[in-house]
């Protein structure tokens, strides 16, 4: 177990690429920051899974259904791993984190505060939102100071890469499809583009603790820009219009987006977005509907124990 005499001492440790491990006597502010970050990630994985689960019965064709089933399982699995890492920080148990989430007291990513109107909305989420998530997660993974989170993230990132391949394949189907399919995607893109830009968060403030303690190592603007440089040209090549009138490409081929209106993001941050209440209610319902599974697991474990003892 390591301990630091002051936050300045801890800063130095972090500045020298130190990795925090469980049992270290970390500054309480670091504990709170890293916990909040992982809790929000866990909540978002859970909501991502529920969002995909909704589309299992609606997805066109058996292959898409299988893929959505598997992705749902992946996301819920990721949430489970992350809740365990978060719980180990000792601030909230997994049960309390879920209680807070179901009561609408916790944060989850902005993209899960909106309705998905058509199949194309879900493809925007499967491709662009997953790509945005992967961009931010890869940046965290590169140099995150919290050891247990890094280890779990490594596995999550490998699986998200697979999701993106699937999302891109679905996008290609619409891009290569009929006018109706292409229009459906363009409409969805128009609805979601701002939320995708918001996903990376408002400009990182000077002295941001997440950056200071290397919980994440790149600013929100840097990540948003990385995403724009990669995915704007892709959308343009497929013949879609990125809904940003000020968007342009400079002589060095670099893309520049227009100013972002942040008003819609603040609503999601206080859980009063378009679909926030319904999503929270649905997550609570899913938890209640699956109580029998947890009971069955507990019962079978007890039964096995009793048999083992006999």
């Amino acid at each position, binding site marked *: 177990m390591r301990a630091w005499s002051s936050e300045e001492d801890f800063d130095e440790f972090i500045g020298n690429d130190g990795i925090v*491990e469980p049992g270290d006597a970390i500054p309480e502010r670091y504990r709170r920051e890293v916990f909040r970050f992982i809790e929000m990630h866990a909540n978002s994985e859970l909501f991502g899974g529920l969002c995909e689960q909704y589309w299992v019965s609606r997805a066109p064709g058996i292959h898409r259904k299988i893929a959505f*089933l598997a992705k749902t399982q992946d996301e819920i699995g*990721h949430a*489970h791993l992350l809740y365990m*890492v978060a719980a180990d920080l000792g601030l909230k148990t997994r049960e309390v984190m879920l209680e807070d989430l179901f009561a609408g007291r916790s944060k989850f990513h902005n993209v899960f505060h909106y309705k998905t109107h058509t199949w194309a909305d879900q493809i925007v989420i499967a491709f662009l939102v997953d790509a945005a998530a992967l961009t931010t997660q890869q940046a965290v993974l590169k140099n995150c100071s919290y050891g247990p989170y890094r*280890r*779990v993230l490594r*596995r999550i990132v*490998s699986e998200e890469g697979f999701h993106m391949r699937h999302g891109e394949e679905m996008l290609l189907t619409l891009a290569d499809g009929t006018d109706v399919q292409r229009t459906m995607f363009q409409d969805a893109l128009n609805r979601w583009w701002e939320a995708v830009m918001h996903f990376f968060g408002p400009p990182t403030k000077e002295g941001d603790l997440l950056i200071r303690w290397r919980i994440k190592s790149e600013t929100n603007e840097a990540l948003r820009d990385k995403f724009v440089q990669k995915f704007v040209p892709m959308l343009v090549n497929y013949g879609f219009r990125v809904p940003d009138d000020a968007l342009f490409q400079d002589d060095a081929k670099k893309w520049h987006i227009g100013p972002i209106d942040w008003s819609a993001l603040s609503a999601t941050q206080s859980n009063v977005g378009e679909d926030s209440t319904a999503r929270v209610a649905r997550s609570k319902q899913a938890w209640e509907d699956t109580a029998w599974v947890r009971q069955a697991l507990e019962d079978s474990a007890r039964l096995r124990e009793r048999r083992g003892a006999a």
Partner: protein
Amino acid sequence: MMGSRTTLEARARTLAAAVLDPELGDVTIGELGLVRNVHVDDRGCVEVLLTPTFLGCPALSLIAGDVERAVKTLNVADVSVRFVATPGWSPAEISAGGREKLAKLGIGVASPEGNVQCPYCGSDELAPQVPVGSTSCRSVWWCSGCRTVVDVMRGTVDS
């Protein structure tokens, strides 16, 4: 003729085995033990037989496509990829190299004697959390040695 057919089968097998699992970083399907057999028929068509880790695996069509593309580089008449369910796959078929790469991802594999160690710290103090994790071929454990959550590969046939 037979000699060249055997050579072709061996080369096709090598190419198929080198295909990466789409969800496991640099782990190949050969290291996972998914490549069952490779046949070349009289017309020079190659058939690759793979076994899935579990029947509902969502990566199967991606894996089949990747294998087909890889083997086609041999300029053969045709390539078909078929999944065979029996005999079922088990984690025992993962090669030593595959185990090492999986461990780096934080995924453990039971030894032939059935012992599981934490892929991070080597501790055997692992407590089961859920029998099925983010995918049906893995379970989730908690290592009290290094306080980390780990995945362990599982078969779906006998567990």
